[in-house]
């Protein structure tokens, strides 16, 4: 359970990481292969052949139509992969609505903004919290909550926690009719001081 709340701390970068790592490794592998080929590891005569081998270009002229279709196919695959990659990476993190009932004909969802606003105003009512930001993350069926609390100076973190868990989250759990609501709380300590205007 705590792994879900830990996952809610920040947006996952797993897919970005994997794709970027993979691109780097592909570039590295190409470079190593070319160097090995040039060293003559795959045959001394192969190393002395031109980059565009006459044998290959001969095959391409002989089978012009097949070559074109292969090139078109590669182009389409690269375009689709690249677009999906870019769109997935640029898309903002989804804000799921909460599904309360799935019974056909009585499907009931609560809008994300309604929940977020309610929990936020609850959280801002806590003594010692100057500002709060609340959003849901994850999937509609298994939402988790991310909450950022800006604490004033002199606020006791333990007291704030007790309030957050005992009042704010208890109410949210009750409203969603769930036993547990994985929550990631980010705390900004002594943040009230930064509200005062600063001269640069």
């Amino acid at each position, binding site marked *: *359970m705590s792994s879900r709340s830990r996952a809610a701390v920040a947006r996952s970068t797993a897919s970005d990481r994997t794709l970027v790592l993979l691109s*780097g490794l592909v570039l590295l592998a190409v470079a190593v292969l070319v160097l090995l080929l040039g060293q003559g590891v795959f045959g001394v005569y192969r190393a002395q052949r031109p980059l*565009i081998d006459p044998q290959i270009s001969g095959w391409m002229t002989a089978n012009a139509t097949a070559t074109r279709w292969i090139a078109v196919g590669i182009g389409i695959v690269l375009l689709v992969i*690249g677009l999906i990659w870019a769109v997935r990476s640029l898309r903002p993190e989804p804000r799921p609505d909460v599904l309360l009932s799935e019974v056909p004909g009585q499907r009931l969802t609560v809008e994300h903004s309604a929940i977020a606003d309610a929990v936020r105003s609850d959280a801002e009512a806590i003594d010692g919290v100057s500002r709060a930001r609340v959003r849901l993350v994850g999937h509609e069926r298994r939402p988790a909550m991310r909450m950022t609390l800006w604490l004033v100076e002199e606020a006791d973190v333990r007291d704030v926690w007790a309030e957050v868990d005992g009042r704010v989250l208890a109410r949210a759990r009750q409203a969603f009719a769930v036993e547990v609501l994985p*929550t*990631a709380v980010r705390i900004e300590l002594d943040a009230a001081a*930064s509200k005062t205007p600063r001269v640069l």
Partner: protein
Amino acid sequence: MRFLLRLLSPLLGLVVAAIGVITLLEVITAWVAPASSPLVIPWPDWQAALTGVTWDSPTVRLVAIVIGIVGVLVALVPLVARRHDVRLTDPVPEVTVTTSPRSLARAVGHEVRSHSDVVSASVVASSKKVVVKAGTLDAPDEVRAAVRERIDTLFTRLPLARRPRVSVSVAATKGVK
């Protein structure tokens, strides 16, 4: 580095998509209207150049080395990009509490400056280590002990998951008290 990762990932995606588009454009142009063939990329020139170069030529080797270095740099970005959150102890199992290193440094800084014996202080904090540099007009050794004690009381109030190592250095500043 996380910012770099978030920037690099869509860029690489767009590069892949652009290569796809250019391939499609060039192939279809060469097929349908050979007269206007090199549309964007002067590929017949490239083809001629690549036919003349062999795999063991120094140019190819140099280009391969450059590509390899770029590959290592790109592969390093996701490996070093990580969050530097400071964990606090979880109050209940399904709640995770974190704070930012900056916020921890701010809290420590306020605590250190809260007494008049410290005239200036700078704090750098991470989840493992807190470094405090303070300036004082009093005896540095006494102030150092006082600052350390203040930070200790702060950390007993603040339920950090792991207590960071604290290093305090106090220097005497010139001035009139």
